[in-house]
């Protein structure tokens, strides 16, 4: 197998652009998905079954159907419905956010429920409302425990963002496929893309481990 480095070098600027968009898509989606996920997680935990049900089904839907289907639905269905025409980047961010929100909702729920019931009781016995107890007592403690699974979700999101290539959002994988199409080569584009994904996910894991260690000693 001869590996033609000069082709990789030639495509370098595109891979760079693609990498930046991959990072952008993942960052935007983890942020939006995080906020959305918190509300969906809280919604699912409400005592009233009827209120909790739609949140439960949101989670069921987004965890139980392929992300690929969700991206196509959002790109060709949902976005045109709201904007008239579609936009690959917006569609990708929307689909990835909605999808990760379902997983993050479960992370929040597990984190919140892992905090001892006595904490809520102590807060409530002091006269705090349910919301105050959540905000000042439960969430700060739960958040610490959520960092490892949230970090995992972020890693998954970086990898899953490659599916945005399907709707021609010009992220990393899009340029990989473009390069394959142009030169009819398999190893150069896909190994380069794989290497870049690996650098992204490994650096993220490294940062997360350091963050965890810092929080643990606090």
């Amino acid at each position, binding site marked *: 197998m001869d590996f033609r480095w000069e082709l990789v070098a030639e495509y370098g600027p595109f891979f760079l652009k693609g990498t930046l968009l991959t990072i952008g898509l993942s960052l935007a989606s983890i942020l939006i998905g995080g906020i959305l996920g918190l509300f969906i997680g809280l919604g699912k935990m409400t005592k009233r079954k009827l209120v909790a049900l739609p949140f439960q089904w949101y989670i069921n839907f987004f965890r139980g159907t392929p992300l690929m289907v969700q991206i196509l639905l959002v790109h060709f269905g949902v976005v045109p419905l709201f904007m008239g025409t579609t936009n690959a980047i917006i569609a990708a961010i929307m689909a990835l956010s909605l999808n990760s929100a379902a997983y993050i909702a479960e992370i929040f729920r597990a984190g919140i429920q892992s905090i*001892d019931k006595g904490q809520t009781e102590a*807060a409530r016995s002091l006269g705090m409302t349910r919301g105050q107890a959540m905000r000042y007592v439960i969430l700060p403690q739960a958040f610490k425990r959520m960092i490892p699974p949230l970090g995992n979700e972020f890693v998954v999101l970086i990898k899953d963002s490659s599916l945005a290539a399907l709707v021609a959002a010009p992220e990393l994988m899009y340029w990989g496929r473009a390069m394959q199409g142009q030169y009819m080569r398999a190893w150069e584009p896909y190994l380069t893309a794989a290497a870049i994904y690996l650098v992204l996910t490994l650096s993220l894991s490294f940062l997360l481990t350091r963050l965890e260690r810092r929080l643990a000693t606090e």
Partner: protein
Amino acid sequence: MIEVRQLKKSFGHNEVLKEINVMVQPQEVVVVIGPSGSGKSTFLRCINMLETITAGHVLIEGIDITDTKTNINQVRTEVGMVFQQFNLFPHKTVIENIMLAPMKVRRVPAKEAREKGMTLLRKVGLENKAEVYPDSLSGGQKQRVAIARALAMEPKIMLFDEPTSALDPEMVGEVLEVMKQLAKEGMTMVVVTHEMGFAREVGDRVLFMDGGVIVEEGSPKELFENPKEERTKAFLSKVL
């Protein structure tokens, strides 16, 4: 001050409290004793609605807390509670534990809340621990902080659920000492405990609970020296 009328509480089909009637007068110290599983904790937790009440009424200073129109958060600020497991907030320092509720619930300014908190820490003998996290405290110290935290809301009533049961024996004394001091200052208290010495010395009245009912009640002297009911005698012979 506290009036419990025909209180019943069930968990599913399990009726844990069966018609409890109790009156607690201002400044009175009522001690609740009884075997494990008899419903003591549940009774105490019904007084500030940590448990939903199945039937009956609980009145705190004349306000019926079972009435859905009652603002339970408001009532709870008047009723402090101390738990067997302390339940300090581990992510906050000792002084922050104490300041949190006054600042968020009563909207006391931080500076004032801190001063008040320091006064309370001095009272429980822990002013030098203000800036540490609960993790580094002994059990007895944690429980004293928990008492100070409850007192910071300036409650009119204090509920204690086996406050010394999770402590090593050598730390029981320091917590009981703080509670005795509180009683002396005229705090209205309901205390679930196995410390019969404390009940004798500080209690105005002792309730003996078994199987979800109050089997017998009386002054510590009456109840300990002259129990009328067989069940009380049997229980006392085991613990005294």
